């Protein structure tokens, strides 16, 4: 289990400019859906974008606080389309 605030804290360390939307999918606080908009994704392919998000969350992923995470990533330009 992990709070939304804790997840946001981890992500902001790697993506300081990011806009985040986080949904607790099951109410159990271990399965989240994340929408993240950041300029860091510019010129990155989809695989590398996810890798960077997983890297930001590697601690809570490794110790099991996050069981499952769905990620949708966009750049600010893509989000404005």
């Amino acid at each position, binding site marked *: 289990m992990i709070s939304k605030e804790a997840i946001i804290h981890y992500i902001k360390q790697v993506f300081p400019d990011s806009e985040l939307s986080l949904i607790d999918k099951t109410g159990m606080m271990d399965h989240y859906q994340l929408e993240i908009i950041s300029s860091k994704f510019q010129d990155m392919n*989809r695989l590398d974008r*996810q890798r960077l998000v997983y890297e930001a969350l590697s601690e809570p992923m490794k110790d099991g606080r996050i069981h*499952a995470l769905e990620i949708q990533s966009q750049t600010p330009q893509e989000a404005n389309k």
Partner: protein
Amino acid sequence: MENTIEEEIKEEITENKIVIYGKGTKERPMCGFTRETIDFFNRYGHPYKVIDVLNNMPKRELLSKMSNWPTLPKVFIGGQFYGDTDILDPMAESGEMATLLKKVFEKEAQG
């Protein structure tokens, strides 16, 4: 030991055009994401192989290392790594998936 598992994985992703490394089998997926990935490929009608690595920690660790990707399921198409449905769904939406599968399965038809 590690070499043997690596060879096994390389063989699996070479011999099968679509491979899903997941939790559980095609008939009995043990994880919602594995099930979602199976449903995804059922829509396309191409043959795909589900390989259960739920209890095979050495293979899971090696797969994560090879793909630089921490979670299951892991999908390989035409021997290339494509992540999971977070990647596949937008590819389906944009039409990239249909193009990719056409290309991968055409090769087979040509021998």
